[in-house]
Every structure is written in structure tokens, then in C-alpha cells.
């Protein structure tokens, strides 16, 4: 790790590359990246970690981290991660996925990687929208929410109800750590980082599948300012996607980090 000056309070983590992201200003994809990088630094995992990027706005995640990365087909990151983990069981493997990627096209793969108790970590960015393709409805889009593919607002009768992945995956016996956090303010960002830490601790201890669902913003497709987007998370998303611990292996529950 970089040597830290005595009076240094915060500096950019080493596990982040210096590359400027293509994310829109204020998009909390960047915050999630930063937290992962900080955790990898603190756990000293950078040199043994392989990330799996999704198809979505974070498709270029591999450019922004300073460790090995592969890029998956849309929704298949958990399968790809399984392939890697099975032939390199001692390496740390995580996927980074959006809600369209994980909860729509990738539903079967995420369910089964959890059922298998695959020792991988999934960072799940729930922004209630398809960001990259320009704001279509996601499985996590809120009822009534207007998107380019629900122009009159999401009508739950014909377009279905939001899917709560953390709750669903906590039904899987193979899951060791399943929680939902949010990136909308400093306190919750701190909690999110701790959760990411515990997810990787779960993997390092071989306690099964771990996932951190992060409520994240998409100012561009929500068509609000970055700060208003954070308010939207707090006021509108959290009621539908309650924050909390949905499954925590007792060994991890005891853990102090």
C-alpha cells in the first residue's frame, strides 16, 4: 500500500486505476467502485483478486480497477465467476452487476450461484433502471416510475412488480452473507463499505455465496440532479427496498472489522 503521510485523512485507494470513469457526474457507480477498492486495499487482496464486469454502465469497470478483470456476457457474470473460482479456488473472485444484468437476464445464474453456495462475492448495483441503454424499465423499477419502456409509468398489472433480490436470495441455503445497503449519504456509504468488507470476509473464509445489494443513483435517466437523485433513493427506493441484513452466517456476525 502507498505510504500514508501522518496528516493524511483520505486518499484515492491503490486498487483503483488512475483512469477517469465514463460515469455521469454524481453517479454512485463510482462510489461503489471506490468502496470495493478500499476494501481490497485494506484486506490486501488486490494481487489475488479477479473481477468480473457485467454488461451495463459498469461494462468498463475493468478499466477502473487495478487488478485482473474479465468481462462477461450480459447477465452471465455469476456463471463466469463460477468457472474461474472452480479452477482457481484460492483466488478471490467477485462480480459487479447492475439490476438489469443480475435480476432480469441473469436471474437464473444469480439464483444458482447462490444455491450452489459458490464462494464468490457479488456487488449488486440496484439503480431501478437500465442505465447504459438509455433508461428502460428494470425488474427493480418502482411502481408508476416512468422509463423509456414504461412511458406511462410502470403499471404493475401488465409490467410486473419490483423484484427484491436480497430477500429472495436469502432463501438459498448456499448463501453466507446477503444484505442491502444504500449509497445515498455518508453514514450509509460507511455501512456499505463495511458490508462489502464482510462479503469478502465471507468468501475468504469459504462460508459460501455473498452479495451486497447497493441502492445506487442514475441522475441521467432519472432526469434529476446528482443530489436530488440521492434524495430519491432515500424517499422512494428505500421504502420498496428496505435496507438490512437478510442472511448473515454466524461466524461473520461475530466478526469485528
Amino acid at each position, binding site marked *: 500500500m502507498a505510504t500514508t503521510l501522518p496528516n493524511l485523512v483520505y486518499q484515492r485507494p491503490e486498487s483503483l486505476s488512475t483512469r477517469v470513469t*465514463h460515469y*455521469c*457526474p454524481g453517479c454512485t457507480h463510482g462510489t461503489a467502485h471506490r468502496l470495493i477498492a478500499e476494501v481490497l486495499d485494506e484486506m490486501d487482496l488486490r494481487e489475488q483478486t479477479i473481477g468480473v464486469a457485467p454488461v451495463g*454502465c459498469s*461494462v468498463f469497470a475493468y478499466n477502473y480497477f487495478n487488478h485482473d478483470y474479465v468481462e462477461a456476457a450480459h447477465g452471465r457474470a455469476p456463471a463466469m465467476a463460477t468457472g474461474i473460482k472452480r479452477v482457481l479456488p484460492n483466488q478471490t473472485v467477485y462480480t459487479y452487476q447492475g439490476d438489469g444484468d443480475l435480476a432480469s437476464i441473469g436471474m437464473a445464474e444469480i439464483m444458482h450461484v447462490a444455491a450452489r453456495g459458490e464462494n464468490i462475492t457479488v456487488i449488486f448495483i440496484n439503480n431501478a433502471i437500465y*442505465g*447504459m441503454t*438509455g433508461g428502460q424499465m428494470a425488474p427493480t423499477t418502482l411502481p408508476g416510475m416512468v422509463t423509456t419502456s414504461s412511458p406511462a409509468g410502470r403499471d404493475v398489472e401488465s409490467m410486473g412488480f419490483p423484484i427484491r433480490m436480497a430477500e429472495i436470495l436469502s432463501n438459498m441455503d448456499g448463501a453466507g452473507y446477503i444484505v442491502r445497503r444504500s449509497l445515498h449519504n455518508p453514514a450509509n456509504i460507511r455501512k456499505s463499505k463495511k458490508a462489502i468488507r464482510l462479503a469478502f470476509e465471507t468468501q475468504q473464509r469459504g462460508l459460501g455465496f455473498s452479495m451486497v445489494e447497493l441502492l445506487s443513483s442514475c441522475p*441521467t*435517466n432519472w432526469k434529476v440532479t446528482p443530489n436530488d437523485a440521492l434524495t430519491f433513493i432515500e424517499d422512494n427506493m428505500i421504502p420498496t427496498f428496505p435496507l438490512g441484513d437478510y442472511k448473515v452466517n454466524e461466524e461473520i456476525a461475530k466478526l469485528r472489522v
Partner: protein
Amino acid sequence: METSIIISGFGGQGTLFAGQLLTYAALDCGKHCTWIPSYGPEMRGGTAHCTVIISEEEIGSPIVRNPDVVLAMNLPSLDKYEPLIKAGGVMIANQSLINREIERNDITTLFIPGNDIAEGLGSSRTTNMVMAGAMLELTSVLPLDAVKNALDQHIPARNRKYLELNYEAMEVGAKFARENIKLTA
């Protein structure tokens, strides 16, 4: 006679809409026309450009390497298209965001302070109209009224209140072109 126009600038400068406007007008004038945008994975920033072709006959390729007319709304656009524009072509450059001269002397160039004029009129969001007006003045590709009419029909409802302002922007742009073109031509 076929005229190819490339409008290029930052995302958000209204380059794509300006191009569509010319295409609508061309259609109203009974001409063949095509509009084709650049499209990218990024939702924000970066440059956006489109190619408009207006012709008397059926149009083959909707893209051209060497356009007849270029509206360069920012410096990167000028850098990219100055070498490509056809000899004898027309370059309208947005002086407000471009701090350099132009090398080519085989083309007609108009430097116009698009943003400054637009802000003078009350909104920098009309920069694209200012430059369009200037272009229409320097090329006889379409009558200004046809474009105004197209704008009237296709301006998004939320912007209708700016219709007159946009008209004015085009006229001022055209006027500027009339008065200043000598300088560089």
C-alpha cells in the same frame, strides 16, 4: 445537386436536433434527405455529431468522408473536420469556444461567436440556431422560412415558449453572416 452537412459539438449543444430540423425542412421542400447521428454507449458528455444530406435525387450513402458544409460547435469538431471538408466547402465555426485560426484557404469560413450571441439573446441554448441561421445564409441549401416552419412543427412542447427566441437566433445568425462573411471569404 447534393449537399452534405455535418453538425458537430459537445453533447447537449443541440447538434442532433439542429440536424433533424434541417432534415424536416428539406422534406417540406420536397427534397430527398437523410439524417444520421453518431451514437455511443455513454449517456453524457463526449462529442455528438450528425450528418445531414439534402439532395434533388435519391440519396446513396447517408455518410460522407468529405462534407460540403460543417457546423463546428467546439474546438475538437473544428480540429476533426477542417482537414476533411470539401474544397470550396463552407465552415461555420463557433468562435465562443474556439480559440484558434483556421489553416485552409480553399473553403469559405465564418467564425461566429455562437454562445455569446445566444447568451446576448437570453439563452446559450439557442447557439445551435444562431449557427444554423448563419449556415442558411451562406449556403442556399434551404430557405430560412422552411427551417422556421419546421421548428414550429417539431419544437418539443416544453420549449414552445422559446419558439420566437429561436426564430430570432436564426435571424441574428443569418444577419451576422451577411455582415461578416466578407472578412474571411
